């Protein structure tokens, strides 16, 4: 379960919860979830990794994966822009992890790093997780107290 919440000055206005596909999958965590702001800044709005040790390694992984995201977006630009699929699929596999990407129409990127050995997470599960993540992000953007571009804080 991935929780993303936001605060206003007085009280928590709302909180959105992303369920990993279904309750049954709660055991199957993505190793890392990241929301990355739209270009040209391209900095992370939110990063949450489950093994907190050696987190910088994942930072590098996600950072370099942006190359692939850029490439995929630009390749898609030639194709149908309106009808395009937000889910980018597997960005690239590394030895231990798989990196998946998702890009909203406003070019906000979601990147998820999953343990390669985790077979429970197939394409469909990843896709629905991204969709829920996107919904939560939309909720955050709806919060009048949130400034687009600020870091997202999770409870």
């Amino acid at each position, binding site marked *: 379960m991935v929780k993303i919440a936001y605060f206003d000055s007085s009280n928590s206005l709302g909180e959105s919860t992303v369920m990993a596909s279904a309750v049954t999958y709660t055991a199957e965590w993505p190793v890392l979830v990241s929301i990355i*702001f739209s270009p040209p800044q391209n900095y992370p709005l939110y990063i949450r990794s489950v093994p907190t040790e050696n987190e910088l390694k994942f930072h590098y992984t996600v950072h370099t994966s942006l190359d*692939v995201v850029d490439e995929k977006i630009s390749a898609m630009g030639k194709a149908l822009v309106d009808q395009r699929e937000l889910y980018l699929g597997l960005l690239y596999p590394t030895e231990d992890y798989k990196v998946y990407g998702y890009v909203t129409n406003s070019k906000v990127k979601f990147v998820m790093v999953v343990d390669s050995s985790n077979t429970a997470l197939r394409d469909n599960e990843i896709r629905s997780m991204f969709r829920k993540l996107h919904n939560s992000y939309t909720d955050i953007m709806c919060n009048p107290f949130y400034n687009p571009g600020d870091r997202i804080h999770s409870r």
Partner: protein
Amino acid sequence: MSVPDYMQCAEDHQTLLVVVQPIGIVPEESFFRIYKRISAVSQVNVRDSQRVLYIRYRHHYPPENNEWGDFQTHRKVVGLITITDCSSAKDWPQTFEKFHLQKEMYGSTLYDSRLFVFGLQGEIAEQPRTDVAFYPSYDECETVEKRIEDFIESLFIVLESKRLDRATDKSGDKIPLLCVPFEKKDFVGLDTDSRHYKKRCQGRMRKHVGDLCLQAGMLQDSLVHYHMAVELLRSVNDFLWLGAALEGLCSASVIYHYPGGTGGKVGSRRAQGGSLSAEAGNRHRPGALTSNGINADTSAEIGRAKNCLSPEDIIDKYKEAISYYGKYKNAGVIELEACVKAVRVLAIQKRSMEASEFLQNAVYINLRQLSEEEKIQRYSILSELYERIGFHRKSAFFKRIAAMQCAAPSIPEPGWRACYKLLLETLPGYSLSLDPKDFSKGTHRGWAAVQMRLLHELVYASRRMGNPALCVRHLSFLLQTMLDFLSDQEKKDVTQSLESYTAKCPGTMEFITLPDGLKLPPVPFTKLPIVRSVKLLNLPTSLRPHKMKSLLGQNVSTKSPFIYSPIIAHSRGEERNKKIDFQWVQGDVCEVQLMVYNPMPFELRVENMGLLTTGVEFESLPAALSLPAESGLYPVTLVGVPQTTGQITVNGYHTSVFGVFSDCLLDNLPGVKTNGCTVEVIPALPRLQISTSLPRSAHTLQPSSGDEISTNVSVQLYNGETQQLIIKLENIGTEPLEKLEVTAKTVNTKEKLYGDFLSWKLEDTLSQFPLKPGKIATFTVNIKVKLDFSCQENLLQDLSDDGISVSGLPLSSPFRQVVKPRVETKPINPQESSKVGDFSHVKTLEAILNFKYSGGPGHVEGYYRNLSLGLHVEVEPSVFFTRVSTLPATSTRQCHLLLDVFNSTEHELTISARNNEDLILHAGECQRMAIQVDKFNFESFPESPTDGTQFANAKQLEEERQQAKGLEINSKLDICWKIISFHEYFVEGVLNQLVLEHLQLAPLQWGEFLIRLVQRLWNVECSIPTTCMPVTSFRKSPQFIRK
């Protein structure tokens, strides 16, 4: 085969490998000069054919790679050029011997070789030899190029003969099996007569011929051979060679499709003549005419369409080839090189995603244990390739790894310099620049976590390089740009290390230029502390310059002929935004207030904080401050002295934090509020300091006009008293004081004042002028307090009480003094007690003395300064005249004026009047005194000159007249009081005069009625001489008063 050549590209398949090596002792510089000239000859048009030979020169080539020459002929060293330095004929045989030794190293594959001898002259040099060329020196060798071309032609002849020899299909002969070094042992004892074996031999030979054709410039032939080889080898599952054949096919196709080359090096391939471009131009028109007539190689045209691979097929075939190579562990280098070549092709095709897959594959190819240097090379090349396909982040990632490898702990002598250089190259990939300006605006760019890491590594590398200035610069940059992302602990660590570095080498505002020309801009600490607002402060009121009115008027009139114009007003309004409407004065301390706060979780010590200005020579007086941890907004005042006049602009401020000097310009600061930064500096003015004989007062005046009082003095006086105030004027400035004007203004005028409150004679003081700096002049002011001596409230109360008033009018002899103090000072009476309270009421008078002064150059410019002295006078009541009445005297020309006098002081005092004896009053006592006065006619007063002429002035006239009458009465009566127990002088004549005037003014203040009353009293006496009349009139008079 263990050393991969990462620089390889597909076109290299068509080149002939020539090794150029020095033997003996050849100066490196000279060798490379010759090497450069030799390698310039990389394309040779072979005579009488259209074919072009491409040569690849190497000055170093591992012989074990040469062993793979049969597998791919471009790996075979076919030519050897040796360069040697031989000064005497005696050394010659030895040198020649070495040349032969060198030849043997590559002997099996060499087609031909050359020896270039430099420095040898004489007999030996004159012998004509084909394989040796003699040159007198490195500078005199014009024929080197020619020699090389001849040499290449000889290579071509050998190549061509080999090609023709192997291309002709001699079915009868047994075809030898070509094999790579690691295969040799596998074929021992194999049946050489089987069809399978024969086919394998055929396939491999086809592939070999294809290679030779490609090298010999026969592209189309090579394609045909490669195709045949692929078919043959596929049927026998000879995967390694199948891969090689496929790769050959790809290479040939790439050469055909991309004549510009895939290596990306512009200089490496000279676009020679028409052949390449012509071929490129007419490749879609088979059989077309070229500039040289009909294309000689017509056979090529026919097979072209089907033999050459399409760009998509090239990649498929590369993939296939690489997958076959992958089956053999020993062919790792081949696989790696194939990957690199494929990536280069894909980069040209702009198919980054597929290229990245190839690269990803290349990453996983496990070669034997690599040396550190090879690792660095490998990562660098990966980085370069990622860069080429537009994966800047990935490229930066590998470059960083390469950099880390340079300084790996396993290396005995870490190459920090190389590490630093590589790290610098990664910066763009992490969207990091070393210019702090890029980070000052808007939201942060790029991935802060990895950027921070990189900056830390830069700091470390530069420190290990032994360049503390660089280290400080990077660390400052880290602190400045990443402040928002550093945790509290990190902030502490970073600042601590920064301080320790700056102890050795303070941070400056200079550009740091690196050896390779990169310039590191200075990093001003605009966030340590953060400045929120900058406000230029006006001078203190007493030092503020004012413009003389007349000059100001001139100024306005010269600006514009119009009294009002909306256009001008508009432009002025804009100007005002930047310019401030006050002035600073040359030579005076001027202040700028900054609101700052400290974002650090610990106390921030800012040293040497001062202003940066332009326009006027400005002596900044630096301040040091210490801001508490995470302080709120904190006001800081920076001061300085303008030394010249003109427009001064405050551009920013400089600080020294953690040993780093920063010049922070306001233009570069985001979110700074300012009220304008340009102010005018006017010429110097003198400064006046005043001190007085009176004590300073804690009581501050609040003047209405907004100007402040620099000094306040207070004095306590009894009503009617006079005191002298001596003011010392000291010129504490540097300019002579030339002009002085003094004006006084009474404030808080609830009380009606009579006569001059303050009076002075300026002439005495002005005679001491001009006042030189440091000199003192004195100035005397007389303070007179004359308030109402009557007791208005008391009287009114009396009126309400008829009995008292009647009893207060006894008809008795004129000289009789009614001495009934017990009765008069009735403390028992509640009405009276309230009266007493009124009597003791202390009244205050306040006045401001304004000193307008000027001098020096500022005076010439028409400026003056204004210094105000606040005067606070507490007036204690002295005597009160509670009742006034008259009695007729014995003579008709005279009458008795009866006054009830009340002593409200705590002292015994005496009242005296003209022609009268003193009356002694005890504290709180009330007595009646009678004064015999001459009657006089008010009508006899001289009418004021304007009398009757101006109707509008009637009221004023009336007042004047009344005042004159009051004065007249005063002079007649001449009443004064003095306190006996007090200082003698205090009760002197001056005082008397005061009292006198007061008395006379008292009736005035009672209003018209009282004036009239007194007048009537006199008038009645004067006009009606009958004795009976006054009595009635007297009786009436108090009633008049009552109303």
